[in-house]
């Protein structure tokens, strides 16, 4: 215990704090400029000076540790005079352009000068001028205003780990610059904007558009992009989002954001938004009215159901839609349409993997909090770059690395280049071999745990038929790191599972997690991949993860829903597509998804959908899929409606409405109306009522309310009852005989700056990353004689594309990457797929690629 006196107030601390922190805790304000709560103390601005008894000089409160018996004075004539002197120094070269500066009103320097500063200037020489830089598409830099507090640089380096900016020069020639001195070759997280106390770095998205005091309201909500679900504040004026900012210490992201969350919001104001329902007439989509469109949909679906039975209908739900939307959607499919053919794109990765792990390791296996990653001793990362897919989770990994954790990476992971301890890059389609060999060796050392019969048996069986020891550089090191670690986290991306034998890797990873007692994190590209599963948008489970096959559950839901739930498990996503192609499925309802673009083999998918009798697409944009629909229904987007989302930690969070718009209707509401027309009543006044029903009928969400959820710590299993089903037999392994002999392999790029097809409507993100490029390794470039910017044509079995080459040093193998985000230019159109028989994920086959320089 430390007791000190600040301004005659006795303060007792139970942990070591700086004098500044101690004072703040006690409600005593000490002015600061270089200090920031998210950053390490710096001590550069000297504004926080205080008098400390028995210390000869004034001390900076931000760096001085409080000690027992210390007597501190934070305000005195001496101290005020010093602060005035410091502020005078800061102003001698400051342009004093407040009337023109966008920071005015929220500028720390302005506020400090107002309180402590000099009123007249004694400096008569010419000021140091640095021309304002508009060379970057997103940031403007005005180094005349910079006070060299280095908060931006420390944020960028010590917290974000991008280290894309630095102070160039020294002394009074110091100025913040990116390497190029012009545009920022960075991660565009914009966290530098959060910490800049003055108007030295500003976002061009809002510059000269409003004053901080002119916002009508600020709405605390969550981001709509990925499975992390960061908290942020939407600042609204005239029913438009003016700016998105994080708030320090708030949400699981604690004041940090990534480029998508901070700059990607403008899609919502896009002029391309759908505004009215569209109906196909004479082969063309034409504007229609809600009543006509909804009538057509209800009518058509009823017809198909009556003539072919419920099994001819299917629905595709959306991991971009809320739990309420998805809950209503599955209820509609089951009760109004009479089918369990419900799935989502989550099947191609997250949902399939999640189901696999839950079956083997028990429910809740993936419910681990991101913050916990920071304290891991070892983090094993495979199947994707967490810093691009789930950036804020990626930051936790970087933080762990800084704290000394070992970071072992299997495959390429650009964002961890400077943070990894070890990297293994198995050749394409050899990942399962590596993982099985690893499991065997770990088993050999550790033996079995005897707690999970299925896994025990499966691991032993695998070991018995194992081939000779595995020989790969770094393999033994990886083994040692994993064996030595007392606390291991496994972070799994979906790339290495999207194989025809993806389940082999899944089993090996499950085995490793089991033997190492590791925690599992599944990377999740979309904001509600867990939610679509939990609300029952899967063909084999009812809300709350209740298996359809268990009659007790089914009966309870039937009682609550007042009807009959179809008996048989439905089709999974890719089976639905195949079903459409085979004419088994006649009508398909797609809510917030774009399968034509987002699934491999575009021409196959689009042909399948074209062979349907009836296709409804509900979306906020006229997507590639909507273009071929019979009816298109405009929905509402982010900040236009309220609803809950379940993130990859299985935390339920509330996304709030911030603006009024007449663009469309809530997804759940459209569906409820159709349901009503089809004779199955759904009467919800608002999304809250939907949640109330979920909380009533699903045993997992007992008593959950919006009020409870908005506290932000609603984590699985909430107040509910988790299911602890156990299986005794590990799933069988289907040996596939894929032998690939190509020189180069095409893989899907998961860029940090884009997310599905949503981000292409965000002008800012399009400016940051405007055109896809074929990303190749240094070696590949050498082998093919390619230079940065060369044009190439690349071919797979089913097609070819032209692209610009970009050489990426973080690629360590013969994969070449191309993105699936840009209109008319997705990599999926070049890839075919097979369905993994076990997980029903697509195996991205046909990825051998030939590259020709043009």
């Amino acid at each position: 215990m430390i007791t000190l006196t600040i301004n005659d107030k006795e303060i007792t601390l139970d942990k070591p704090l700086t004098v500044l922190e101690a004072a703040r805790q006690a409600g005593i304000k000490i002015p600061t400029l270089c200090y920031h709560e998210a950053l390490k103390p710096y001590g550069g601005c000297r504004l926080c000076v205080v008098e400390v008894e028995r210390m000869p000089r004034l001390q900076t409160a931000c760096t001085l540790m409080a000690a027992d018996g210390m007597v501190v004075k934070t305000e005195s004539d001496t101290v005020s005079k010093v602060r005035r002197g410091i502020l005078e120094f800061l102003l001698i070269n400051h342009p004093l352009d407040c009337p023109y500066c966008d920071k005015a009103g929220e500028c720390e320097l302005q506020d400090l000068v107002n309180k402590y500063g000099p009123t007249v200037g004694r400096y008569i020489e010419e000021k140091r001028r640095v021309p304002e830089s508009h060379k970057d598409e997103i940031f403007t830099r005005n180094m005349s205003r910079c006070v060299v507090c280095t908060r931006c640089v420390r944020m960028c380096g010590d917290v974000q780990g991008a280290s894309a900016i630095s102070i160039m020069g020294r002394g009074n020639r110091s100025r913040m610059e990116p390497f190029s001195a012009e545009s920022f070759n960075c991660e565009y997280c914009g966290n530098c904007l959060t910490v800049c106390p003055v108007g030295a770095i500003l976002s061009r998205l809002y510059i000269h558009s409003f004053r901080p005091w002119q916002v009508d309201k600020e709405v605390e909500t969550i981001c709509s992009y990925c499975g992390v679900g960061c908290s942020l504040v939407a600042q609204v004026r005239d029913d438009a989002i003016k700016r998105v900012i994080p708030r320090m210490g708030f949400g699981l992201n604690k004041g940090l954001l990534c480029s998508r969350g901070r700059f990607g919001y403008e899609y919502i104001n896009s002029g391309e938004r759908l505004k009215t329902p569209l109906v196909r007439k004479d082969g063309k989509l034409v504007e229609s009215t809600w009543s006509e469109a909804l009538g057509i949909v209800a009518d058509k679906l009823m017809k198909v159901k009556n003539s072919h039975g419920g099994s001819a209908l299917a629905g595709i739900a959306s991991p971009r839609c809320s739990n309420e939307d998805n809950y209503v959607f599955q209820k509609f499919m089951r009760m109004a349409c009479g089918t369990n053919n419900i799935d989502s794109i989550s099947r191609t990765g997250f949902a399939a993997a999640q189901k696999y792990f839950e079956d083997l390791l028990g429910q809740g296996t993936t419910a681990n909090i991101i913050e916990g990653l920071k304290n891991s001793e070892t983090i094993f990362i495979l199947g994707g770059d967490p810093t691009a897919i789930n950036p804020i989770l990626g930051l936790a990994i970087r933080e762990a690395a800084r704290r000394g954790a070992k970071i072992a990476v299997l495959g390429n992971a650009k964002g961890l280049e400077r943070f990894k301890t070890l990297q293994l890059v198995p050749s394409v389609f050899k990942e399962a071999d590596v993982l099985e060999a690893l499991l065997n060796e770990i088993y050999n050392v550790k033996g079995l745990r005897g707690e999970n019969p299925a896994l025990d048996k499966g691991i032993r069986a695998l070991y018995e038929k194992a081939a000779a020891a595995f020989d790969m550089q770094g393999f033994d090191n990886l083994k040692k790191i994993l064996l030595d670690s007392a606390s291991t986290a496994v972070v799994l991306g979906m790339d290495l599972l999207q194989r025809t034998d993806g389940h082999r890797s899944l089993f090996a990873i499950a085995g490793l997690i089991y033997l190492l007692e590791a925690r599992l994190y599944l990377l999740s590209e979309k904001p509600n991949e867990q939610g679509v599963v939990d609300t029952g948008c899967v063909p084999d489970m009812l809300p709350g993860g209740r298996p359809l096959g268990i009659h007790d559950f089914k009966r309870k839901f039937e009682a609550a829903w007042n009807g009959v739930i179809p008996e048989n498990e439905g089709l999974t996503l890719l089976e639905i597509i195949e079903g459409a192609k085979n004419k088994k499925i006649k009508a398909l309802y797609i809510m917030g998804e774009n399968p034509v673009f987002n699934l491999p083999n575009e021409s196959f998918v689009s042909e399948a959908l074209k062979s349907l009798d009836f296709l409804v697409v509900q979306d906020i944009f006229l997507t590639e899929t909507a273009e071929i629909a019979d009816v298109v229904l405009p929905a509402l987007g982010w900040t236009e409606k309220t609803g809950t989302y379940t993130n990859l930690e299985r935390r339920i969070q509330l996304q709030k409405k911030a603006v009024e718009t007449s663009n469309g209707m809530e997804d759940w509401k459209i569906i409820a109306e159709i349901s009503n027309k089809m004779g199955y009543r759904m009467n919800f006044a608002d999304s809250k009522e939907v949640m109330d029903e979920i909380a009533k009928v699903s045993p997992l969400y007992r008593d959950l309310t919006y009020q409870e959820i908005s506290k932000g710590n609603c984590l699985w299993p909430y107040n509910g009852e988790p299911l602890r089903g156990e299986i005794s037999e590990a799933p069988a392994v289907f040996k596939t005989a894929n032998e690939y002999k190509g020189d180069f392999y095409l893989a899907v790029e998961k860029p940090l700056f884009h997310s599905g097809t949503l981000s292409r409507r965000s002008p800012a993100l399009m400016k940051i990353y405007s055109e896809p490029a074929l990303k190749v390794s240094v070696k590949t470039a050498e082998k093919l004689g390619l230079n940065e910017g060369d044009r190439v044509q690349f071919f797979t079995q089913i097609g070819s594309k032209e692209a610009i080459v970009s050489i990426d040093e973080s690629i360590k193998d013969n994969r070449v990457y191309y993105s699936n985000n840009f209109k008319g230019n997705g990599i999926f159109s070049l890839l075919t797929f097979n369905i993994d028989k076990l997980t029903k994920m697509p195996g991205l086959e046909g990825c051998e690629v030939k590259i020709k320089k043009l």
Partner: protein
Amino acid sequence: MEKILLKNIDNPNSADINEYIKVGGYGSLSKALNMQPKEILEEVKKSGLRGRGGAGFPTGMKWSFAIADPNFPKYLLCNADEGEPGTFKDRPILEKNPHLLIEGMAISGYVLGSEFGYVYLRGEYPYAKDVLNKAIKQAHEKNYLGDNILGKGIRFHLAVYQGAGAYICGEETALIESIEGRKGQPRNKPPFPVNAGAWGLPTIVNNVETLSNLPYIVEAGGEAYSKTGNKDCSGPKLFCVSGCVNKPGVFELPMGTSLRDIIYKHAGGIKDGKKLKAVIPGGISTPVLPADSIDCAMDFVSMPKAGSMLGSGAVIVMDESVCMVRVTHRALKFFEHESCGKCVPCREGTEWLRKILERIENGKGREGDVELLSDVAGNISGKTFCPLGDGAAGVVMGMLKHFRNEFEEHVKNGNCKFQI
């Protein structure tokens, strides 16, 4: 006085290891390795040796802080940044007597339980770099450095790290930042380098001259060493005299030799029969003393009493033809150029001071400028992150204290009567 630091220095081959051995070199190292590190530490404490880098911190005390935890590896850094203007005392050791330093470091490494030492050498000494590298190689070959020094199972390696033109890197924490491959900006203290310095481990930073005293202390004993100099500050000291004297140069004299003697006895008095006007006694960061204040003992204790500091013992002598405004202006150009930019008062204040001085010197001074100078210097002094800023303010305040009228005349007349 017997020369300890500049011994043998007139021998043209003094930097060669064989010449060094001929005059008894490396004898102390082999003697030291037969002693317990603790015994040697006791001798260092007894010797009263204080750091020669400028601050005068007792070396034995610094070392005992670092030794406190025997389990940690430690680093020994030799501060050969010698950046204080007017200072050129370490250079003769580095260029002509490198083995004295190497032997001193090897002994220190043994005492401190350190296996790696680095000489942080200023970038402006390329010749010294070659000499040192060669000497280190020779010492390695003769087994005075390496994994098994003199067959005693003691390990100590030495490497030279070349600075790149930043005065602030002489400050020990900035030096550590620099050797870690960063900008040389000072670190917060605590933690002090002795607890967490280079690469996060306990680190001892000592000046070249400080470490070069070790062989003698081991050879003759702390007691004998302490006989040289005066009670509070013992041993020999290198004084470097520059400016308007007849015989500028580096002089090895007992600590506490009077400033007058240094100038008149050793440096041959004022050039061209001119009159002494002022002396900067310890390198440019120390306050100036007027001609009538030079009867002071040059040591760490007496100099503050005389209104200045011993600093690095760099005596800059100015005769009656030198304009104090001009000297101050040039000094401030230096501080402005060398300010690392970390803290506001130094970064902005040195620029402002320089600009005021510039206009005064250029005949554009305004009424009130002298007060402004004094006020701005006051706003810097005591508020900066590290002593560099204090030094800048101290120079101005010292000059104003003794030569205020010169500044005022400059403002009033737009020029002065001095040639330089």
